[in-house]
């Protein structure tokens, strides 16, 4: 049993993952944050029990090679820190490409990121097809009544209809080498990942190139909102709709 009740302070940190660091894995990024907090001597709380771990919890994992303007992690501290200087202080001790853009304090009983996030918006660059072909495939996909997708995990294969997970999808235009899409994909009740969307478009030889998560969304009082607003107003047009 633990000792006397201690004060706990929960922070939600929003950060970007851009550039070479995108090739680090989710676990790598978790470790980078642990070390960064130790460098700053942040009073991170540790779990009780046999193998004490620092109490950091991440939201949705970002696949290796994907970038993001909107990643989140929650951390529990034993003392209230000075939040104002924290984004800059953390960014300074994190590798290039991991930038902390905002930090907020959470009230008690706040839903975890895993529970709260319902969808994400993405910029997805695809290669191997013309803009016209991609546009046609997008139209077909949106018009489809259902889109069965086979997934295998741990040797078991399941098939799910992922059409309900495509909330919005449009072709933005050609890039130097490929075609860029904007996609709003649900994470619950049915989820669809950007790599799977590329598969589901059904164009032979279509490959994903640069993929960037631009937003993660939760629903607050019926309105789609971000867990932590970015202080930079130029980050994405969707922000206006969220407020």
């Amino acid at each position, binding site marked *: 049993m*633990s*000792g006397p009740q201690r004060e706990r302070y929960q922070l939600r940190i929003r950060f970007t993952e851009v550039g*070479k*660091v995108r*090739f*680090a*894995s989710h*676990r*790598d990024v978790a*470790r*980078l944050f*642990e*070390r*960064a*907090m*130790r*460098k700053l*001597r942040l*009073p991170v*709380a*540790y779990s*009780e*029990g*046999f*193998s*004490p771990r620092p109490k950091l919890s991440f939201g949705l994992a970002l696949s*290796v*090679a994907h970038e993001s303007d909107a990643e989140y992690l929650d951390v529990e501290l*034993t003392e209230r820190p000075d939040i104002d200087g924290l984004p800059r202080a953390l960014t300074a*001790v994190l*590798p*290039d*490409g991991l930038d902390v853009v905002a930090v907020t304090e959470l009230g008690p009983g706040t839903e975890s990121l895993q529970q709260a996030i319902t969808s994400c918006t993405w910029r997805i660059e695809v290669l191997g097809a013309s803009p016209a072909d991609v546009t046609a495939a997008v139209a077909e996909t949106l018009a489809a009544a259902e889109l069965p997708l086979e997934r295998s995990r741990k040797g078991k294969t399941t098939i799910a209809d992922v059409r309900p997970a495509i909330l919005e999808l449009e072709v933005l235009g050609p890039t130097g080498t490929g075609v860029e899409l904007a996609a709003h994909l649900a994470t619950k009740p049915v989820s669809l990942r950007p790599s799977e969307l590329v598969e589901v478009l059904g164009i032979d030889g279509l490959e*994903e*190139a640069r993929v960037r998560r631009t937003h993660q969304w939760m629903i607050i009082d019926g309105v789609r909102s971000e867990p932590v607003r970015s202080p930079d107003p130029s980050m994405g047009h969707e922000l206006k709709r969220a407020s």
Partner: protein
Amino acid sequence: MTSVWPVLEPLLPKVQKPARYIGGEDGAKAKLPDPSLVSWCFIYPDTYEIGLPNQGLQILYEIVNERPDARADRSYAPWVDLEALMREHGVPLFSVEHHTPGHEFDVLAFNLSAELTYTNLLNCVDLAGVPVRTADRDRSHPLVMAGGHCTYNPEPLADFLDAVVLGDGEEVVGEITDVLAEVRNDPNLSRTEVLERLAGVEGVYVPSLYDVTYDGPRLGSIAAPGPVAPDEIPKRTVADLADWPYPKEQLVPLTEVVHDRLNVEVFRGCTRGCRFCQAGMITRPVRERPADQVRTMVAEGLRRTGYDEVTLTSLSTADFSDIESVVTGIMDDAEGGGRGTDDAEGGGRGTGDAEGGGAGDAEGDPAAEDGTGDAGCGPVSVSLPSLRVDAFGVGIAAQLQRARRSGLTFAPEAGSWRMRRIINKLIQEEDLYQAVEAAFSEGWIRVKLYFLTGLPSETDEDTLAIAELAKNCVSIGRRHTSRASVTVSVGGFVPKPFTPFQWFGQNTSEELQRKINLLRDATRKMKGVQLKWHDPKATLVEGIVTRGDRRIGPVIEQVWRNGGTFQEWSEHFNLDLWVEAMADHGLSVDDFVYRHRTEDECLPWDHLSAGLHKDFLWQDWQDALAEQGLEDCRWTPCYDCGACTGYGIEHVVASATPPAGGSQGTGQEWRNPPPVSVELSSRRNKQNRESDLEVAQ
């Protein structure tokens, strides 16, 4: 100076662990490529996860980058998936900092720590766009050099290496850079002339300047015909580690690597004189880092890196003359205290020893403690690489368990007291039990024990004694926790150059497997004992290469050309490639590996020197067969092995106080052991003679 990043980047999403190839480490040097600088590419010929933590490479990388006239990048062997794409798309081997192609460097400098990486070395040279054979290179190509422990017999790689550097690299890397700075301004010099200049640097061996003769199947001689190259190449030794507080900024990778913690070297060299241990023999004399410098490097390193674990590395860390107060000091610094005084109990028993520097510890069983350190950097786990049992006492155990503890590894190496006398690892069974008792009583649940099998004159009784020891250790553990377990890790013994056992014929892989099977049967029913072992077939290949001569070069090349990279990875190791290559070149495995060598024959490393007199080693070999032990000379009078006297260096110790219990620690009566006659198998000698005849005909 180009960067391959634009061509490489699109390939990375297609391979496993792409973070291996992006650099970006905390501590990486950002010195931009500049054609006016002498440029080194330090390469560890294995994957990034294995190569990044290598301290030797990091030390030299920092030292070169500190010079205004030079820069250094790093590279590692690309995994097979990326290699295939690289060859398909014409992407050469690249450095991880700037993605500079390998062929644009002045030097490709390999760290050679394991014989099974040699095919990777060839592969990296080839991937860099450089001819693998020195004879095919010209002045447009980088020099290919090697350092590390395998350089004490570099002959199998003699056709591929332009220069080999023996011993400590800190000073010699600068001297080599001076030569390179001179010669790059003189394009009229031939490559041979450049190599001759390098041969003039002490500690640098240029194999192409030496002629080799054979006497039938035996090596005849290795000698330099001209005056340019020395008859004997002595190793380099830095006299005082205090002058070299490196790495000042240990590399902290973005991605997971082995030994992923702060590593601080506390001393170099070892004077225990374990007869099987090449590392101990070739790194003499002992040079300890001053205790306060260790503490500073640890405290600053933890602050800078954000690691919460530190390993104090050396060959025998518990032998460090002030180890308990250093460990206490580190813990105190971390917790923000800093009591500073020596409050360690004097109860530690004797001195300790370790298996090879930096031997990783198993994941441990951390204490159920509340880790909210505030003023310091928080709870720190200190680990010492595998420990010698007569040094590990309650004092150190108590210190190490203060924070989340790592695994504990001991290296008794031999199962019976008789064998331990032969290998000169003079610890009694009781010492092991007391150490294990200390560990379990302080809360450890798992302990790992390292052993060798295939040691000279080993009998099955000796082998099975390993199982008995393990069983008894579990019993001790079970008095403290029902979950106590002991992992026994057994490796096949490979006789190494510059050790007293260098004349011993290695056990065949069948014999090693038979001994392992004995242990498997014995431990199968033992609760709490887990047995792991090194593949005897891999041990055989190590044996071929480690005491081979230049005739093994074409064997290595053939194995490489037939796809034999990453031989140190079990999923890629392929004994057939090696056996076929040996046969194709008319070479006998028996000759190179199983045969007992004779006192008078030329050994492929006779023209190199680790400081030890050959007759000292022969005498120690005879003493081993007579089961005589030899004291630790750090604390007792010198027996003139040659290491110090030849260099005019003495042991440098951090503290005048020897570890509690004195050297070798046990005070047991080993000077006059009961006589046991030991004979090398006469049947094997007869076989050797027969095979000699076959080859001679």
